[in-house]
């Protein structure tokens, strides 16, 4: 049997992943609920003063969303490993990095994009000034794909483990520190009336770098942990 074209393989993979996620669409709500609850806890801990909450709003939302998408990262390859399709991906004649890039893209679109959509709601809960909201959304749109890309490499390294949750956090968090610094830093700078383009540009540059390198690294990591 002749293998199909790479494009056909990618389309098939995208369609399959989307179907699988659609069948379990209730799960997609979990990260949303998680981030709303985390953000709602902060006023209880710090008091309801508008000034205090507005001061920490951008950082809190950033941390809550990063943690929420980190929790869902664990599921990136889980079901594929259990039903054996991950090994089929590795064995397929098509470039593994491209197939993984498709999987990462689907994962980001289905779990993290909804988080960005509810970010304005979270911003309202913490009294984030309206002028900062666009910066927050741009920063999140640049930083969360970074987390998915870098996270995918770490997930690929821990893929065979039964309880990888804590370890995954340990592996991903130090690598993601710059995204948090630049993303939340841009929001804080905007809030203070300072120029905020430089950190956003840095985030963008890093995202481009990760877009190229991370799928390749994830493919190499997956091959290491499946041999």
């Amino acid at each position, binding site marked *: 049997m002749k293998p199909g074209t790479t494009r056909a393989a990618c389309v098939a993979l995208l369609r399959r992943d989307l179907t699988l996620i659609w069948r379990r669409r209730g799960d997609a709500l979990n990260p949303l609920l998680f981030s709303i609850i985390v953000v709602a806890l902060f006023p209880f801990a710090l008091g309801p003063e508008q000034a205090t909450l507005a001061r920490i709003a951008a950082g809190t939302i950033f941390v809550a969303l990063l943690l929420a998408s980190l929790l869902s990262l664990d599921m990136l390859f889980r079901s594929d490993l259990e039903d054996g399709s991950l090994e089929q991906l590795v064995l397929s004649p098509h470039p593994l990095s491209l197939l993984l890039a498709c999987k990462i893209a689907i994962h980001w679109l289905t779990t993290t994009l909804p988080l960005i959509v509810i970010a304005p709601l979270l911003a309202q809960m913490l009294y984030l000034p309206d002028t900062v909201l666009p910066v927050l959304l741009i920063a999140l749109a640049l930083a969360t794909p970074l987390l998915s890309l870098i996270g995918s490499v770490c997930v690929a390294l821990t893929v065979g483990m039964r309880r990888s949750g804590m370890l995954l956090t340990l592996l991903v968090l130090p690598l993601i520190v*710059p995204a948090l610094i*630049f993303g939340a*830093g841009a929001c804080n700078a905007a809030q203070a009336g*300072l120029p905020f383009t430089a950190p956003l540009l840095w985030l963008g540059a890093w995202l481009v770098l990760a877009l190229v390198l991370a799928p390749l690294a994830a493919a190499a990591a997956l091959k*290491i942990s499946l041999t």
Partner: protein
Amino acid sequence: MNPLLLWFHKLGSPPYFYRLAGRFLPWLYAIALITGAIGLYGGLVVAPADYQQHDSFRIIYVHVPCAWMSLFVYAFMAANGFVALVWRIKLSEVLAMASAPIGAAFTFITLVTGSVWGKPTWGTWWTWDARLTSELVLLFLYFGVIGLYSAIEDTRQAARAAAFLALVGVVNLPIVHYSVNWWNTLHQAQTVSLMGQSKMDASMLWPLLTLAFATHVYFFASLLTRSRVALLGLESGKEWVRALVNARTGGRQ
């Protein structure tokens, strides 16, 4: 084959490495102890007190060599990890994984001594100083490598996965350092630098360099000890390990 390359290949063989390392080890420990003692004497007794920080600057003699070592060991680990992944040399895997705990130990010392030094200098135990924060991230990277290595059961696969993580960390470390620097300048005015930009006097500098040398030698001594033990476990089915254990048991009876 050229003799140097031949020797290199021979070095990669576990029994040869085990024996050679065993011969070097006592010398390495001795050199590390003697130069360390000289450096400490120079730092604690001979070097004059700093005119600004008085005697508290003497912490520099343990803090800075350890900070240098934390970066050096990471580079060493990543280089060995690279060799292990590309050429699949077993010895490189062992060396990379043996250096991770030593590097974590040096990073930990750097953080604690930096914090202890911060109390008299800045008035607080911890400052989100750019260099200290980078060291903290480095410590987490080390913990990640160690954690991944101990979480995978197959030793060789674990070493390759952890080596890969170390390489990812190498790509990331400059970005971390740059971002932390940027964040630090955004949030607070320049703090008093621990190292000081001014040149150190020779009488203060030589103990520092001596201790840096001693910690390097100590690292290699500890590295060889750990690698020898790891090789024993890894090659436990091989004839040379069998012979070695038998010889030791025979000697004791």
